């Protein structure tokens, strides 16, 4: 195993645990009917991908996210209070209650938007990367998407454009084995999605998406490569979606045995074990991180609870900016 400094490992641990704690709270509050709607897609079990990839990015780099996007935004540095407020549909939320879970966005941390259309980001991320090049910066754009999205036309169009123009994009496929209820074996003829990179003459790598350090290493390589002008990479992270596709999903298309196995690959526990075995940290230090995070999430819930509802009177002013150069 390469050397990792303790600060990085603690940061990765804290990020993953923050995502877990945030989403477990969201799941609980959704169950209590506190969060409007049912379009809430949780990434419990997939935290290592968001944490590992975003740790390889700078603050001014971009991410384009998916419908399952809470983890990406937390990992990019968004604050959990404004996220929780957004999920509750409050005016203090990042999107002033106009987006909700599925469209959660924080441009100030480089999060260009979760997206309700599967595969939509695959063509938006190359545009952010093109913009960086035209503006003369060395920013990189990361595009998160799932195995399901890899069958959309936008996957092929986005990879083709980015490869042809050698744009600084990292395409991160979170392969959790399912497009909603449809297993990967039923929705595509290949197992390793990274093989599709060959068709666009870009590197394709598959990593264990439950191993945050492995994700981080691969992402760092791809990000630096993009930053140096060598073009895009397709990085596939094989992971597991512990919960249903959305909060009300009965998830009866997966057997109890299959689901029981998911937790054996818990990315947070894996990192914990590794840290302690290698003497990088102590159980009490990890416990302290967890309790700090849990308190942060409680504060986020309180902030969201106390925040005001948005006003329909403000809607018309948000359709157009009304401005001009």
């Amino acid at each position, binding site marked *: 195993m390469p050397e990792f400094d303790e600060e990085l490992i603690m940061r990765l641990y804290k990020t993953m645990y923050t995502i877990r704690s945030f989403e477990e709270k969201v799941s609980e509050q959704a169950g209590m009917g506190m969060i409007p709607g049912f379009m809430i897609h949780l990434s419990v079990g997939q935290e290592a991908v968001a944490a590992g990839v975003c740790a390889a990015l700078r603050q001014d780099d*971009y991410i*384009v996210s998916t419908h399952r996007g809470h983890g990406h935004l937390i990992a990019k540095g968004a604050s959990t209070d404004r996220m929780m407020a957004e999920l509750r549909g409050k005016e203090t*939320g*990042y*999107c*002033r*209650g*106009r*987006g909700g879970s599925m*469209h959660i*966005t*924080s*441009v*100030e941390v480089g999060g*260009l*938007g979760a*997206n*309700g*259309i599967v595969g*939509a980001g*695959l*063509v*938006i*991320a*190359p*545009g*952010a*990367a*093109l*913009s*960086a090049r*035209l*503006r003369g910066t060395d920013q990189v*754009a990361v595009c998160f998407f799932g195995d399901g999205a890899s069958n959309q*036309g*936008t996957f092929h*169009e*986005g990879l*083709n*454009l980015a490869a*042809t*123009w050698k744009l600084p994009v990292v395409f991160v496929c979170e392969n959790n084995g399912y497009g909603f209820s449809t297993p990967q074996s039923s929705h595509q003829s290949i197992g390793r999605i990274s093989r599709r990179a060959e068709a666009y003459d870009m590197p394709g790598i598959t990593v264990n998406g439950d191993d945050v350090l492995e994700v981080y290493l691969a992402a760092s390589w791809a990000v630096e490569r993009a930053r140096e002008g060598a073009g895009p990479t397709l990085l596939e992270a094989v992971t597991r979606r512990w919960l249903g596709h959305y909060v009300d999903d009965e998830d009866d298309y997966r057997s109890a045995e299959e689901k029981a196995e998911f937790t054996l690959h818990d990315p947070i526990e894996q990192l914990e074990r590794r840290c302690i075995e290698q003497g990088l940290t102590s159980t009490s230090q990890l416990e302290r991180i967890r309790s700090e995070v849990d308190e942060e999430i409680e504060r986020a819930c309180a902030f969201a609870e106390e925040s005001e509802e948005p006003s329909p009177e403000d*809607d018309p*002013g*948000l*359709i*157009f*900016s*009304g*401005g*001009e*150069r």
Partner: protein
Amino acid sequence: MAEDKAPETQFLTYFEAVRQALKEEMELDPSVFLMGEDIRYSIFGPTKDLHLEVGEGRVLDTPITESAFVGAAVGAAITGMRPVVEIMFADFMTVCMDQIINQAAKIRFMTGGQVKVPLVIRAPGGMLSSSAAQHSQCMEALFMHIPGLKICVPAGPVDAKGLLKSAIRDDDPVLFFEHKALYFASDEVPLDPRFTVPLGQASVLREGGDVTIFAISGMVSSAVSAANSLARDGISAEVIDPRTLVPLDTDTLLASVRKTGRLVTVEEGCLTGGVGAEITALVTSEAWSDLKGPVIRVAAKDQPVPFSPVLEAACAPNAQTIAAAARECVGKN
């Protein structure tokens, strides 16, 4: 001495006016750049060899991949650039509907105003010379239904230049429908780089007191011809070109209808769910007491545009059908 003064206008075709607007705005603002299929070649001419004048990096020929380059334009627009993309034929907008409707139009609202989307999509529409059903459609009515998109329908070279410059400077997504049959129409076009035509300001092309003819895009010149022939019959028609459908200059339209009491709408798009349907609903609800009779809509037939020149001509309105509608409207048919 008159000959010492720089000319204030230049006689330009519509496509040259579009080109001049693009060039002027690119010279003015380094964040403006162009993307599209074969735009350096440019079938209709507006962007032909423009890269030689403004720089290779600012006129990008894309693969044939509407979803990718319109999606990329959204990504570029929300990160500080002002992309102007060309959809080679407006009909091809159907290939990138997600990028236009779900992304460009909604992203500002969905993010609570965190982003601006200064994006222009130029799209040549309308019938020209047997282009048939997939290269002839007028798409503007379809997009009027989508909040978050501005829509320009320039009917001549002056407006093409002035509106395109405003569209590029605008911080919101603008669909800019050029009409293919107008590309070689010509006029004296202002040369002052400060010249623009603001979005949302209709133009009254002919004043009249008996009937208002509201016409857009390729139908405006036919409406003016119709008004001229009506004048010979003693019918005084007022011709209004809204120039932009979103925002719509309702004040000018309603003032005209309140004066004439009669309205004919004219468009080259299909009748059902067309621009005229919306205008009719607007006028009947806002100026009902001033109307002296039913509004008449003149539009293309509700059918795909046919290939045969005979069938194609029969599908679209023309000056004669517009004049006939106006006569019916004033009860002199």
